[in-house]
């Protein structure tokens, strides 16, 4: 069984988690056009390489971020969303792992 490290609960079987999709920066709903909004809501970049993704520990409904290499399926690290979203200006561009 593959293990994923939950920032709240520690290492757990991967079957306890739900994938939540790639992390995207939300466009301003008042300023963007329909195609930009549709891009945000419906589409993923599906990049080969390290991407930042939402994951949820189902037993606790706890959402967190994971940097995962989509080629090797290696999870580089997991961390709290506050680390990325507390300072939006300093957040790395989409699809790139935080340092």
């Amino acid at each position, binding site marked *: *069984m593959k293990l994923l490290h939950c920032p*709240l*609960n*520690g290492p*757990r*079987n991967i*079957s*306890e988690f739900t994938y939540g999709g790639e992390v995207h920066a939300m466009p301003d709903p008042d300023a963007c056009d329909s195609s930009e909004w549709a891009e945000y809501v419906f589409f993923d970049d599906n990049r080969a390489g390290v991407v930042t993704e939402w994951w949820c*520990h*189902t*037993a*606790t409904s*706890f959402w967190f971020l994971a940097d995962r290499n989509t080629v090797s399926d290696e999870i580089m690290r997991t961390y709290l969303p506050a680390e990325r979203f507390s300072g939006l200006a300093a957040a790395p561009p989409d699809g790139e792992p935080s340092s």
Partner: protein
Amino acid sequence: MSAYPQNSLRRSQLYRWHHEHGAHFANIANLVVVNNYDSERGDGPGLCDLSLLPRTGLKGPDAIRLLQSTVDDTPMEPNQSILTSDDTRIARLSLEEFLLLGSVDFETSEIAMVDQALAATSGMTYSLPRADSHCLFALKGRDSPEVLAKLCAIDLRPGWFATGAVAQTSMARVNAIIIQHHFAAEPGFFLLADSASTEYLWTCLLDALQEFDGGAVGLDSFRTMQHKE
């Protein structure tokens, strides 16, 4: 003493199972609970249905402040729990979420105090009552970590899972909260899961207990343990 769950408005989802398996009921704190069973075995690990045990929960940025103003101690880290002087088990499920379980003698007062404080607060604290949403079992006995090893991936042996530790995980493919607790001198666990899974989980646990010569026990077994101490 004759007490029947059918005559009580509040009853465990398992009351029919208890009745069919020779349970003798007792009235404790106006709740009809299983006192013992006809064929109760005393040596192996025991599983007790505590679904009527008083409990509550709270969540929010101000939850820790409300709790600190009401009870004498609170757990500092998520997934830890402490036992208060009132024998209430307080578990911290996340930074801002707490779960309180009354003592197995049903004589706790802190649950009611916290519920009163919750009703009166105007702060950012929200009630998470667990009495109806979750079933609650107690599993006790020296072999209880091995019993749960058949259903759960977490290592719950004493060397790895400390006294008062909390695991929120999958047990028999059901989301569950496992809290380490000593019932008198015997190690054991509180187990909580969604109330819709009560009968399923009870059956799974009894199945796991068979290998260790364990089975269902009533509240009387806890009183026997206290006398042994």
